[in-house]
């Protein structure tokens, strides 16, 4: 089967995302190594965390764009169109919340928002957008996707280890809800939605396992991994703040969210790459099709 060259480069989007994530994490490890070895001799200032936050927002922008492309692959009324629309909105909420959060947190003298009396409200809006809103939209989108997967028979009972992992995350979320520090409404809702997302991720993982190793399976597997990494990130941040507050372990905070964001971007990237691959094939001349035999008297083109 012959394929045309994909000049737009979207077929290689998954590879680019994996490469960017690998480079980012390697550079982070290298910086951490340099810091830990040079710190006794030199005074090195810790970054504010803004660079890490922006890189996650950058990956969310890529996710939103790829979700838009995936959404446009489906005709109106297609069952997965609604799912991709919700996931696109989820990514957009992540971008909006991330940008608003960065703008309201940046302690730069020329930042006009710092002087604003509504900075607290803006920060809260950013937390809501990038937290419960983004996660709720994602959960709704994945639920729609799970329905379609189930309709086509891609449904399997999760294994005991999957239930155990989901149970641990849910217990952790419940425990954290009980803590005074996490008692604010935003975090309560966020943790509750995270529990739903983890269960969905478990089902998605099993559905993808039923399919095999094609790009469609990889797409849903990437969503599941993104959710697992989000849960892991929440647990890691909690553990670091509680048990390992000092360096260098605390530096892991910078790199916890990027892999999760990368997996969320990787999911639509796999789908878009698969669609490009399918539609990018060389179209056959009509006289090769079997219908030609039914229409021998057709005028020549």
């Amino acid at each position, binding site marked *: 089967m012959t394929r045309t060259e994909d000049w737009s480069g979207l077929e290689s989007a998954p590879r680019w995302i994996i490469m960017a994530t690998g480079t980012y994490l390697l550079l982070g490890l290298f910086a951490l190594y340099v810091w830990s070895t040079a710190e006794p001799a030199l005074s090195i200032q810790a970054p504010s965390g803004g660079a890490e936050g922006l890189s996650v927002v950058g990956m969310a922008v890529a996710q939103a764009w790829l979700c838009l492309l995936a959404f446009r692959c489906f005709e109106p009324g297609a069952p997965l169109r609604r799912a991709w629309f919700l996931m696109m909105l989820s990514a957009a909420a992540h971008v909006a919340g991330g940008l608003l959060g960065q703008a309201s947190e940046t302690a730069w003298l020329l930042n006009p928002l710092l002087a604003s009396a509504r900075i607290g409200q803006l920060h809260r809006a950013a937390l809501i957008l990038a937290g419960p809103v983004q996660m709720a939209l994602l959960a709704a989108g994945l639920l729609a996707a799970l329905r*379609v997967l189930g309709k086509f028979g891609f449904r399997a009972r999760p294994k005991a280890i999957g239930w155990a992992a989901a149970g641990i995350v849910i217990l952790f979320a419940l425990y954290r809800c009980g803590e005074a520090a996490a008692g604010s409404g935003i975090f309560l809702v966020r943790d509750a939605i995270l529990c739903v997302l983890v269960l969905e991720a478990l089902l998605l993982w099993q559905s993808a396992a039923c399919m095999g190793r094609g790009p*469609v399976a990889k797409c849903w597997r990437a969503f599941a991994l993104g959710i697992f990494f989000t849960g892991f990130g929440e647990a890691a941040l909690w553990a670091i703040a509680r048990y390992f507050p000092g360096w260098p372990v605390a530096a892991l905070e910078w790199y916890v969210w990027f892999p999760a964001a990368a997996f969320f971007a990787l999911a639509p990237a796999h789908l878009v790459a698969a669609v490009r691959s399918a*539609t990018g094939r060389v179209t056959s001349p009509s006289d090769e*099709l079997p219908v*030609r035999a039914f229409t021998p008297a*057709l005028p020549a083109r």
Partner: protein
Amino acid sequence: MHPETATLVAFSDAELAPGRSQRIARHLQNCSKCQAALECISKEKRDFSALADGLPPAAGVPRGLAAVLQAIAGWRQAAAPELRSRARAQIEIYFGCGAASMLERPDIRADELLAKTLALMAAFLGQDAAEAAVEDILRGLDCAALTAEVSP
């Protein structure tokens, strides 16, 4: 650019997606060649339907139509394994071996497998990708030779 014959057949059967169907309809308004092709397709479909209903063939229909139908049946039988193998390959490429095994029951007919492949790909990759994949499956499976063998 003129639509392919397969696309015109799908258009006349109202099997195209709404957006694509509208594009073809707009093109047909301005293209006499494609109008003639569509008319030809419609006429032949009517003739086939008449034959299937046991009615006498319309005037001008080749006398070897029954032989052509026989050839088509022969082609279906001959091409079925290849069609099945290609459909399975497409599912494996985009979904994986598990999906292919789940879809390809031992008793499934080749055309049924093709329809399921189309439905699966349309659901998960969109209509355009599904149509492209089906075109890929059908490419080269020509029954012209078989038709020639049995024609009077």
